[in-house]
């Protein structure tokens, strides 16, 4: 999947996006912390043996948590061991913009769905993204934006009777 070895190793960088080493270490530390948290919470619940139910509720997760923390520590150790071959960047500076152009609007979109239901934010999100990122003609944006929402409404609410999130605007329409 990733091919950091095949690329020529760049000299240590001081600014810009983090190197693979930094990311590997960070994720490994998160795994250790999460594993410890899981183990602690399961220990609190009871991770031993009960005469009534056999293994208590925390029995399995406690061991899983400890193992996960151990695996995280191993990844951390490997990263430190191989740190000289992990100097390539996690992401190239030119790649950050395109990733964020879809990641940030997606987050805003989900936030909007929370307040306004799915239909209106979907129209706005698709149409704006097509217009601003794709530089497509406005009528195409409106057509796809409204069209996919109508299709969704028919398929989910009418055909399969699965309700989708609705907000004040749909209420106003009496849906």
């Amino acid at each position, binding site marked *: *999947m*990733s091919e950091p070895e095949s690329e020529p190793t760049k000299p240590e960088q001081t600014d810009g996006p983090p190197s*693979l080493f930094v990311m*590997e270490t960070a*994720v490994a530390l998160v*795994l250790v912390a*999460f*594993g410890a948290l*899981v183990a602690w*919470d*399961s220990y609190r*619940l009871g991770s031993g*043996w009960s005469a009534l*139910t*056999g*293994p*208590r*509720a925390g*029995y*399995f*997760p406690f061991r*899983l948590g400890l*193992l*996960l923390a151990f*695996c995280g520590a*191993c*990844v951390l150790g*490997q990263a430190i061991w191989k740190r000289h071959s992990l100097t390539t960047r*996690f*992401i190239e500076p030119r*790649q950050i913009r*395109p*990733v964020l*152009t*879809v*990641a940030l*609007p*997606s*987050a805003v*979109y*989900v936030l909007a*769905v*929370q307040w306004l239901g799915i239909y209106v934010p979907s129209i706005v*999100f*698709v149409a704006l*993204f*097509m217009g601003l*990122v*794709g*530089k*497509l003609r406005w009528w195409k944006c409106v057509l*796809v934006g409204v069209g*996919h929402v109508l299709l*969704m409404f028919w398929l*989910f609410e009418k055909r*399969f*009777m*699965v309700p*989708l*999130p609705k907000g004040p605007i749909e209420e106003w329409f009496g849906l």
Partner: protein
Amino acid sequence: MEEISLLFAGFQTALTPYNLWLMFIGISLGVLVGVLPGLGGPNGVAILLPLTFTMAGTPEGKTSAIILLSCIYWGALFGGAITSILFNIPGEAWSVATTFDGYPLAQKGRAGEALTAAFTGSFLGGLFAIVMITFLAPLVARFALKFGPPAFFAVYFLTFASFAGTSRSGYAKTTAATLLGFILAAIGMDTVTGQLRLTFGSERLLNGVDFLVAVIGLFGLGEIFLSMEEGLAFRGKRASIDLKVVLRTWREFPRYWRTVVQSCFIGAWMGIKPGGAIAASFMSYAVARRTSKNPEEFGTGRIEGVIAPETAAHAAGNSAMLPMLTLGIPGSGTAAVLLGGLMMWGLQPGPTLFLEQKEFVWGLIASMYLSNVAGLIIVLATVPLFAAILRIPFSIIAPLIVVVCAVGAFTVHNAMFDVWLMLIFGVVGYVFKKLDYPLAPLTLALVLGDRMEDAFRQSMLGSQGELSTFWGAPLEGTLMTVGIILLLWPALSKGLRWLATRGERT
């Protein structure tokens, strides 16, 4: 030959106009999902699963629902080849090996031949696997009926051990991903004691983390973020398949019988084991090159180089249904989602399925024969259409896929919280893919976590806490021992090699 009569009954179930229509829809959607970046087998099925809840209310409805969802899987298997050959972009991980010779063929203007060969190989591989399932599955199920909880735990253990032992991502990362899946599965109310686990006081985590939400985020959104890095400008070759090209390719096809046969066996074998289609396609390509008279021509546009990975991927994808139906252990990520679907419809996957749900099981197996034929016809007829879909700018496809993912995540439990979770899983999926953490064992662990824990607890209860129960009978003992060997295999083989080289030196 009880199987034959059951199979014919299955054909009667599957051969209704409604089910044939669902087959057509499923395969078309599947090809679409396989062609589009950001959507794939696992999350395509995951997004459509909630739509089948109302469908699966009746026994016949359950059969129809599994036909629809499994056809999406077969369609996705076919669809991956289209992008690989025409655009040099593998639509699915299992069609990466198809690009090696498929794209050079397309550059030479032989895209039509390459596609026909790929589809035909896929068809034969699929057929081989289905015939195998027809005759082997009832035997395996009958055998597995004798399994007690320790044996089931041993089978689960073997499954995950073989993942860790064969993964290209390395031990620590594969195990970490698997454990993460188990832990996520443990969140929520404990079914035995009723206690709340790992919810940290949040009511929203009461029902746990649904694997569908995780799959949609990890595979769907994560993949979109990854695709965006390259800005994604598709520049593909044109392909027109007419009857003349198809017939010419078919006339030459018998020449490649050896490649087809060995790929069928590799695929069927790899598909039964977890890890499945992806490994099978690479392995089959490597074997085809090694056994070829002129291996140096591979990579420049050999038809065998397309047939081998596609045949194996299809054989593996289909035979992944064997352990899923008989043992309740899916052989691939998509099969894991299908298995999750069965559980949501109230079916108990495992050996009893063959006894108690005869109509369902044989309806599905019969539909696999039919949909394999239907799939071949549909993809041959619609390649230009799907190639045209890939020419749609990514600035239209990307937001639409985000919307589809959001809808898919919401409809699982009608909960907005799941949409947020999906967003988080999207980021996690992106980071994990970039750092080479495998996502398939995570999904599998998330789906199987509860069942594996139940098997463990029941065995422990039965033995009063003695771990030796897993070696208490020959069956369990063998399974556990094989599991441990598989788990330690990379280390063992390294050690053996080290011993061997040391022996040479002295």
